[in-house]
């Protein structure tokens, strides 16, 4: 269906259902319960981030996952996309369609330049070149390019901006043809509360499209060529294939994905700054990809979702929350436990992230998806007393 195998179609279907129902699924606890306040994630601002970073990492995965070329400067494309979108808001109107289109185009052009140069080297040299380009972009955005980027203040839309195409009475915030991004409906269901927002659904739609496209790319001859490049460039050459254009296309496509993500970030909140391009932001993209599972289809969505969720949850936890959670324990023990947990939550979220990252790279190089598959294989073997054929299949099939 849709040019997909049954299995891929099912995967797509799962993603579609999960994203569309996210406002419900991610709010499993009553809104005013303490669990709800700590663990509910079904509010628009956070769900938008799930979707947007999902798109970003899906694109990154087309480059790193398929070809093995580790770009350490991918946030540059995200940043460029955001700048392009905000400029469209300033010049044309708050309609997000031209903004997003331009984001993708500009990021694509930008990645042609950076890709063409960086891809002349491989391995760690490629990583350093991309890192150098991204840092350069970051530094320039702060200094010389201030007329374009508004420097440290960040680029935003002012009432004095021309907005040549703005229609009479159009919303003074991002919208699609008059439908404001921020418009939402809230449904109450006893103590539960679910918010459905236009902005989130736009991001969700884009995520689904991006995901569908990535399945098609993975299964295409182009995707196969990219995996072959990762596997053995020498053989590629002696088979009569020119790896350069394949690599460049992979780079451009993943740059355009990042541009789309950047455009959407701006569409949700029409301002942007250079810090979006800083190299730790690029590092975060890598972390998400690795955590989910590099080279797998669903990995990027899982990885970005888990990181953004944990970031949100863990960084919200403070000592009060902890005292609430461990109330039942004797005071002495309670205090000890809280002392132990304290450095890892709230402000210490980054520490948890770093540890999580190390644990994954050390013990689970295939990321959560592969970990899940291994667990699944373990259980099915136990329960079904798997035949040799099953085990072979598990060994032969690369992670999906």
């Amino acid at each position, binding site marked *: 269906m849709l040019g997909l195998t049954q299995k891929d179609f099912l995967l797509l279907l799962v993603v579609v259902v999960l994203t569309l129902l996210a406002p419900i699924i991610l709010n499993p606890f009553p809104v005013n319960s303490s669990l709800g306040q700590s663990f509910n994630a079904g509010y628009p601002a956070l769900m938008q981030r799930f979707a947007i970073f999902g798109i970003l990492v899906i694109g990154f995965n087309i480059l790193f996952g398929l070809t093995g070329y580790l770009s350490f400067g991918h946030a540059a494309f995200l940043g460029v996309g955001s700048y392009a979108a905000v400029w469209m808001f300033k010049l044309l109107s708050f309609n997000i369609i031209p903004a997003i289109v331009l984001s993708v185009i500009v990021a694509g052009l930008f990645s042609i330049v950076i890709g063409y140069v960086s891809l002349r080297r491989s391995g760690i040299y490629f990583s350093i070149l991309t890192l150098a380009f991204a840092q350069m972009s970051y530094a320039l955005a702060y*200094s010389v390019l201030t007329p374009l980027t508004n420097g440290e203040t960040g680029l935003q839309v002012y009432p004095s901006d021309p907005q040549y195409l703005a229609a009479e009475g159009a919303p003074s915030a991002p919208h699609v043809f008059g439908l404001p991004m921020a418009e939402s409906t809230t449904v109450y269901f006893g103590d539960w509360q679910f918010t459905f927002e236009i902005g989130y659904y736009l991001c969700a739609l884009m995520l689904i499209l991006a995901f569908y496209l990535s399945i098609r790319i993975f299964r295409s001859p182009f995707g196969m060529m990219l995996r072959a490049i990762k596997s053995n460039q020498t053989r590629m050459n002696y088979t009569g294939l020119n790896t350069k254009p394949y690599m460049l296309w992979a780079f451009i496509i993943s740059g355009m994905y990042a541009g789309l993500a950047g455009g959407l970030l701006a569409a949700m909140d029409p301002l942007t700054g250079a810090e979006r391009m800083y190299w730790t932001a690029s590092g975060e993209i890598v972390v998400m990809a690795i955590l989910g599972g590099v080279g797998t289809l669903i990995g990027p969505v899982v990885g970005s979702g888990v990181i953004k969720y944990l970031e949100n949850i863990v960084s919200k936890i403070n000592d009060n929350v902890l005292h609430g959670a461990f109330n039942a324990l004797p005071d002495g023990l309670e205090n000890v436990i809280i002392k132990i947990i304290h*450095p890892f939550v709230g402000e210490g979220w980054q520490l948890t992230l770093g540890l999580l990252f190390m644990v994954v790279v050390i013990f689970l190089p295939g990321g959560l998806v592969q970990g899940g598959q291994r667990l699944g294989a373990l259980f099915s073997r136990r329960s079904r007393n798997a035949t040799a054929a099953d085990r072979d299949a598990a060994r032969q099939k690369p992670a999906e």
Partner: protein
Amino acid sequence: MDAIILQILNGLDKGSAYALIALGLTLIFGTLGVVNFAHGALFMIGAFCAVTMQRLLTLSHTVIDPSQTDFLGNPLQTKVPYLASVFGTEGAQALITWSVPLSIILVIPVMLFVGWAMERGLIKHFYKRPHADQILVTFGLAIVLQEIIRAIYGANPIQSPAPPMFSGSIDIGEYLGFQANAIVYPIWRLVYFAFSAVIIAAVFAFLQFTTFGMVVRAGMADRETVGMLGIDIDKRFTLMFGLAAAVAGLAGAMYAPIVSPNYHMGMDFLVLSFVVVVVGGMGSLPGAVFAGFLLGILQGFASMNEVKAVLPGIDQIVIYLVAIIILLTRPRGLMGRAGVMED
């Protein structure tokens, strides 16, 4: 002319730091074949050793002086450093102002230990893994280390002044026969430069003139052959890691008066040091040192107003620009061997 000399001097202290970090990175890469993204964190830990030294020296106990009262009429409580009981009040004060240089005695054992623990506990398991995995796991470690430091010392930079003798500036211009105040330069930066020169010389002498160093150099050139000679190269390489960590730590500790230690200084220096390594040539020790100073000085020049007037923003990007040009025209860097780590 005086402006040029000033810019060269301005490049020296940054260049010294780049050179020391890049030297350690290269030692680790050359001996162990590992790309260590946590090396900047080692530099940062060194800087915090200086902070710790200061805190250790100022550890105090409270003395109650019944003969005096504070403004509330209670007996006066004063904090007296433990040191004072050994060195007297004045002696203790003098020692405390010297806490940055004194921290060297703390840095060396701490960093040797940290390096050893890192290598045995983590890096060892990554020798056979792809370079991308090494980058990733050390990147994760760098985040962890920097967050631990932040949890302990907080997010704000901590001032760590140089000893009074070396704080302040001197007018070098006058010595060289220029006008007064043409070249005014902070003394501590000169000290830092001299210090790094000594460290660099020591590392090279160590590699050049000791049997240990000879084996390590041979191992860098051709690990397998040395291994076949029955020399336990691994143990020495572990020690090399400790040594590289100590060099980074020393660089960081002495840098504390120049940039107040903060938890993200390691990451800031890491990226640039990597660029330095690549420009110098992956695996080349002289290349690392040379490129460190070169890029530091280039950055100094690019910060001159005359240069910025012609090429606005050049000071921000000159290092990256040089790196890109070098990587494209001379992939093995200024002094590197061909084919190192091409994939």
